[in-house]
């Protein structure tokens, strides 16, 4: 009791401090209102888990003073009886733009051509703007605030949604009357980040997601360096970044994989970001959980597609159809896995759709408690403001909703939304529910009246016998106004009535057609009963199709398992000195080639009769861009800091198609937009696994370099970025290698140095730890790079494309570089005029290790045929040609100790072919990686049937949704682009 008095006292004090009483008052006397407001008899959700039936809530000066069941009500209290009503803490949105003007996107004006920063005294990259502050742009907008309050919101955290680092947010209470002094809860409430460039800045870098990732990594390193006082120049961005370090950090990821990417950066720099999700987190829930992040979820569930036209329906991928079906389960899936999340209005066109979508999530299994948490306690805790908002515990803001019932029921009415103790009426709570059936005797005729609809906005139907009569009706502030015309005449009756209490009958004054007035009484004959919608009943448990791995067409229902496999009596292309072995058995066990021989026996092995068929090592594509989200970081002429490993897309259908063409491994290369490109990802095509599991363990380190037309931007119409000539290309290399050499020397001297990821990577090349795969065409530039490398005392590992390699094959042999080329491409650019299909054969004749690559999603799945062409052009033997797509690329990639041939102890990455694999007639029947069958011709047939069935099932569900009045969208085909070297 004493405690209570004390706290009351404290609150009272703070209340009066809050009143800005040092401000002059010129329109009257200074006055204070320290009265209490007390709400009684309500069902009070103090928190989602603490619910008080018939509870009392005491507020004063905008805050909760007390809440509980038996409470001593102070004498100077205004009492509100809320019998039968519910009280909830009002909702919070942590990802809002309310009151903060958002920068507008400029119209597209071609590829960006500005490579330098436009600012002075800030970070070198314009898209890093931690110095930005929503506070400086805040202007309260009551019109929007009103809409938000109507949707149940009390507090929002708003920020400038622009740029990669976006600066600080502002926490606002939607208080209509207190002024900014009251409604600004915190003017520096969190720092926001994203992967998206500023729409107001033109600086080219970063042009890609991997560039944005690299930029963030470098930025954090620079901030640390700056904080240690190492910089001689002023950088207001880094200062702001360091000043914002202690704030909550919120990352806009908008996608499950981006969430994981963001989280990794956070982890590496000592931040646990809260993450704005994309609604597809359910597809990879284990990885999402492992981030340990709190999520902010949009409620923009996709609309069903209008599939009534079958031709149009054809364009929609199964992936998109499924997402429509599965997305509403996203909140439930996160809740089931214990991932904390809040909801946001972000992504919704209007707050009006908000409630319906929450109810949809609940219908898809989300508990109401978790839904309420996502709107109150979780957002408060994300913002670190649980002691001020998100619940109705003592001391919190008096931010609460008064409703007619359960807030998550469609029919529930929101009466009032109190913000900081200020009442905002949404629907009149005092209005009596007059719904029901009545008889009205008037002028000797008995009319029957039906009042239905919602309690606050009822509708009326008047009948004489069975005929409906025209009428006008309004019901506001408990006053009824009703006029109707008698059926058989023009005579109008006018009635008014003030509803005083929940009496059964309605009484009032009637004005008759002749102008005379009299009293009337409408006698209640029946109470109103809510009709349940039939469709809702039928749909209590929505049909949800299962998630597959990956969650696209041709995904696995359950991930395939490693098996012990025995291939019997087959032709084995070993790609080793043993050559091609006929009538041979191969045993695969524990993911490795276990035995090669004749009449092998193995207990428990699955036996595959491969008579007449051919078994080879899996094809390795030295140069691919499938399974990448982006290919080029084109913002600088050197981008060694970016990593293809950051942007692997394990759901790309190209992976499955490559498997169907016998490809098991590939180097995912950066594009050729710049002389020094990004680092490679070397992948195994383990369809159904996550990106990290596709990347080789202990992967050899590679980087893409490029020469010629692409790096000169010859075919872009861009003329400002160095280099524009082959002469300049050489200078870029010499410049960067020299800088890296100096950097490495400084680093090794143990003197202080500014960590530079780009220099670190280039120094790895100089130190022989990282290998170059260089896009190259004409002999002059090929020769040049070898000479530059020799000057810096290292070897170029691979020339890729290398279409004029045949002209300098002897020099390549001397240098010790390998070649990875096309079989027969030429004539598409000026620099490939002298490309010849005999290139591979000539280089091979000079002792160069030669591989055949694709750089193309279509050709990649037929690399066996491309190897066949090497037999045709230049007369290479079949055995040697086959090595050009297996062991040779393995050697070039430094993975030949693991893959590339059929040899005991190596990874069981094998393909079973129907014919000689070099033949155009050959089909891959099984493609196996580490003993796991990822492609099987028979399984593929079943998958096709399953896709047809599932598409049809989902189409029928969408037709049903449309028939039931659900919103639909026009069909479209979200297609992943087929990327090449010069894709931007």
């Amino acid at each position, binding site marked *: 009791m004493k405690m209570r008095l004390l706290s009351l006292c404290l609150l009272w004090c703070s209340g009066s401090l809050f009143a800005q009483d040092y401000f002059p008052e010129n329109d009257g006397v200074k006055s204070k209102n320290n009265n209490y407001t007390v709400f009684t008899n309500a069902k009070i959700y103090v928190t989602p888990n603490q619910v008080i039936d018939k509870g009392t809530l005491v507020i004063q000066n905008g805050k909760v003073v007390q809440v509980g069941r038996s409470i001593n009500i102070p004498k100077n209290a205004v009492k509100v009886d809320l019998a039968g009503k519910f009280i909830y803490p009002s909702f919070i949105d942590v990802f809002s733009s309310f009151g903060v003007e958002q920068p507008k996107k400029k119209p597209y004006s071609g590829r960006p051509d500005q490579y330098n920063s436009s600012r002075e005294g800030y970070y070198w990259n314009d898209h890093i703007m931690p110095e930005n502050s929503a506070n400086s742009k805040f202007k309260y907008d009551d019109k929007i605030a009103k809409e938000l309050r109507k949707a149940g919101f009390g507090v929002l955290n708003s920020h400038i949604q622009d740029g990669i680092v976006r600066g600080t947010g502002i926490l606002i209470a939607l208080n209509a009357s207190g002024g900014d002094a009251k409604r600004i809860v915190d003017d520096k409430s969190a720092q926001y980040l994203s992967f998206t460039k500023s729409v107001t800045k033109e600086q080219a870098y970063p042009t890609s997601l991997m560039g944005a990732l690299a930029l963030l990594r470098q930025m954090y390193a620079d901030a640390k360096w700056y904080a240690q006082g190492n910089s001689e120049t002023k950088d207001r961005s880094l200062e702001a970044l360091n000043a914002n370090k202690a704030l909550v950090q919120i990352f806009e990821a908008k996608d499950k994989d981006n969430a994981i990417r963001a989280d990794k950066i956070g982890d590496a720099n000592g931040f646990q970001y809260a993450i704005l999700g994309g609604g597809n987190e359910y597809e990879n829930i284990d990885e999402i959980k492992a981030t340990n992040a709190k999520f902010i979820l949009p409620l923009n569930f996709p609309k069903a597609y209008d599939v009534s036209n079958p031709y149009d329906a054809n364009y929609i991928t199964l992936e998109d159809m499924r997402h429509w079906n599965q997305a509403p389960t996203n909140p439930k899936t996160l809740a089931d896995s214990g991932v904390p999340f809040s909801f946001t209005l972000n992504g919704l066109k209007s707050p009006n759709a908000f409630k319906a979508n929450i109810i949809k999530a609940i219908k898809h299994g989300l508990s109401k408690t978790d839904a309420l948490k996502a709107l109150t306690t979780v957002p408060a805790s994300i913002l670190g403001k649980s002691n001020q908002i998100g619940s109705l515990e003592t001391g919190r803001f008096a931010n609460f909703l008064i409703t007619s019932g359960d807030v998550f029921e469609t029919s529930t009415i929101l009466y009032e939304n109190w913000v900081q103790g200020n009442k905002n009426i949404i629907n009149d709570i005092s209005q009596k529910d007059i719904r029901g059936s009545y008889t009205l005797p008037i002028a000797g005729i008995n009319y029957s009246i039906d009042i239905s609809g919602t309690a606050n906005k009822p509708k009326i139907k008047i009948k004489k016998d069975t005929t409906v009569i025209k009428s006008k009706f309004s019901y506001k502030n408990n006053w009824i106004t009703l006029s109707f015309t008698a059926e058989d005449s023009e005579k109008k009756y006018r009635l008014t009535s003030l509803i005083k209490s929940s009496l059964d009958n309605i009484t009032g004054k009637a004005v008759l057609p002749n102008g005379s007035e009299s009293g009337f009484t409408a006698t209640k004959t029946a109470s109103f009963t809510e009709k349940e919608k039939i469709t809702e009943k039928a749909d209590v448990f929505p049909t949800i199709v299962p998630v597959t791995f990956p969650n696209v067409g041709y995904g696995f229902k359950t991930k395939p398992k490693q098996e012990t496999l025995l291939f019997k009596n087959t032709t084995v292309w070993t790609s080793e000195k043993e050559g091609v072995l006929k009538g041979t058995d191969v045993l695969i066990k524990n993911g490795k080639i276990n035995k090669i021989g004749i009449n092998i026996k193995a207990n428990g092995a699955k036996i595959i009769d491969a008579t007449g068929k051919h078994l080879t090592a899996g094809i390795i594509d030295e140069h691919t861009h499938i399974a990448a989200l982006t290919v080029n970081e084109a913002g600088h002429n050197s981008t060694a800091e970016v990593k293809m490993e950051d942007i692997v897309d394990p759901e790309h259908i190209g992976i499955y198609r490559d498997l169907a063409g016998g490809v098991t491994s590939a180097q995912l290369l950066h594009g050729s937009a710049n002389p020094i490109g990004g680092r490679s990802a070397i992948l195994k095509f383990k369809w159904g696994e996550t990106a990290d599991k596709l990347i080789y363990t202990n992967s050899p380190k590679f980087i893409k370099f490029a020469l010629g037309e692409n790096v000169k931007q010859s075919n872009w119409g861009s003329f400002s970025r160095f280099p524009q000539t082959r002469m300049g290309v050489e200078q870029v290399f010499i410049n960067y290698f020299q800088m890296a050499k100096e950097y490495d020397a400084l680093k090794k001297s143990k003197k202080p140095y500014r960590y530079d990821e780009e220099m670190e990577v280039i120094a790895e090349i100089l130190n022989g730890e990282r290998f170059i795969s260089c896009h190259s065409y004409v002999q002059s530039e090929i020769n040049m790079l070898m000479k530059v490398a020799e000057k810096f005392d290292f070897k170029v590992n691979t020339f890729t494309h290398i279409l004029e390699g045949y002209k300098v094959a002897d020099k390549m042999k001397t240098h010790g570089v390998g070649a990875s080329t096309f079989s027969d491409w030429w004539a598409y650019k000026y620099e490939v005029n002298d490309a010849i299909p*005999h290139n591979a054969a000539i280089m091979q004749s000079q002792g160069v290790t030669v591989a055949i690559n694709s750089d193309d999603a279509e050709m990649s799945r037929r690399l066996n045929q491309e190897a066949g062409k090497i037999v045709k052009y230049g007369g290479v033997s079949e055995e040697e040609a086959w090595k050009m797509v297996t062991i040779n690329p393995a050697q070039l990639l430094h993975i030949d100790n693991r893959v590339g041939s059929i040899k005991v102890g190596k990874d069981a990455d094998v393909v079973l072919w129907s014919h000689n694999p070099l033949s155009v007639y050959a089909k891959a029947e099984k493609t196996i990686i580490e003993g796991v069958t990822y492609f099987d011709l028979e399984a593929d047939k079943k998958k096709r049937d399953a896709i047809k069935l599932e598409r049809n099932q989902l189409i029928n569900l969408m037709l049903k949704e449309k028939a039931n009045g659900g919103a639909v969208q026009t069909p479209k085909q979200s297609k992943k682009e087929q990327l090449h070297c010069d894709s931007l």
Partner: protein
Amino acid sequence: MRKLIHIICLVFLSVSVELTAQQTPGKKQTETTSITNAIAHIGDGSVIEECTLIFENGKITHIGQNITPIGKIINASGKRVYPGFIAPSKELGLIEVNAVRASNDKDEVGDFIPHVRSLIAYNTESKVVESMRPNGVLLGQITPKGGRISGTSSIVQFDAWNWEDATIKADDGVHLNWPTKYRKGNWWMGEPKGFIPNKKYQQQLNEVVSFLRNAKAYGKNIPKEENLAFLAMQGIFNNTQKLYVYANGEREIIDAISVLKANDINDLVLVGGYEAYKITPFLKEHNVPVLVQFTHSLPAKDDDDYDLPYKLPKLLVDAGLLVGIQNGSASNFQTRNLPFYAGQVVGQGLDKEKALQLITGNTAQILGINDMYGTLTVGKSATLFISEGDALDMRGNQLTHVFIDGRTISLETHQTELWKRYMNKYNGK
């Protein structure tokens, strides 16, 4: 192994000394030539083993077993003879290097320009055209691209001094790109990157109809004031030229065929036909042949069978349609892979001889040059080649002799010259 390559190279090098005049057109046939002991793949679905084939004055005079050879004899024992492959819907000789704008003559300004003719821009000296021949691709339909009606094509043979020499059939057909119901979003204007509905489809369709009707009306009473575009359409209406209509979607194909037939255009060919397999009875009913997209393509939709492009020609052939393969959307240089596009269908279960028809007999029939080309038939042009092995497979496609209209054609190219020059530099090592 090294030794073997050594020998092969030496053989080639010694041969090259005799052969000069790369890209110099062969001289008119003066001596009767007999190819003996060959496996002859006729191009009409049949094969003749132990075949003797005789041609004189550029025409095949005899073909069959037990024929006494006359004139110059080429013993093709263990080898195969094929009719020259035909590449329809190509911009060969209209573009030399894709990225060099100055070398690009395939797409003229304007939407309805049937009067624009490819033939006069066809470059007989093209290095890319020359590179077709060592793989057996000897004829092509040179086709303008772009716009709604791109222009008028002509059919040429690939060994000529100038376009007049090259001509097999001048101005053989007009090429119409049917509008598409879905189009790629303009991402830079904020549209999604994938495919979105083309709201102008019906309007674009109406424009086609309007053009056709006007062109036809014009032809009924040609006024003094000449309209080049309408005039260029008259061959379509009097059945002396074909209309090639490019469409891939099921809906677009149905619209195209229905609209064109309703406007009395009877001699038409469907080009593309990605979804033609879904409506084969419709195509059969309207007697529309298909120049189907080449097999070395990716499926257009993620959920499509991975091998749909591979088997597409087979699905159409099995349904009884007249089918040829074109690679109109690919780069010119790719066209030398035409035999392998056909080979790919064999892997899908189509009979080898039927696969061969897709690039020989069928194509000639579709293009309307089957009176002289497309099959090894007495009376037809001696446009044929001898291959060491199966010409539809990379491993067998090794040409030893090529003839166009009976003329002996060089197998040398810019590329083989470079090969030999550099092998020579390395002393055949």
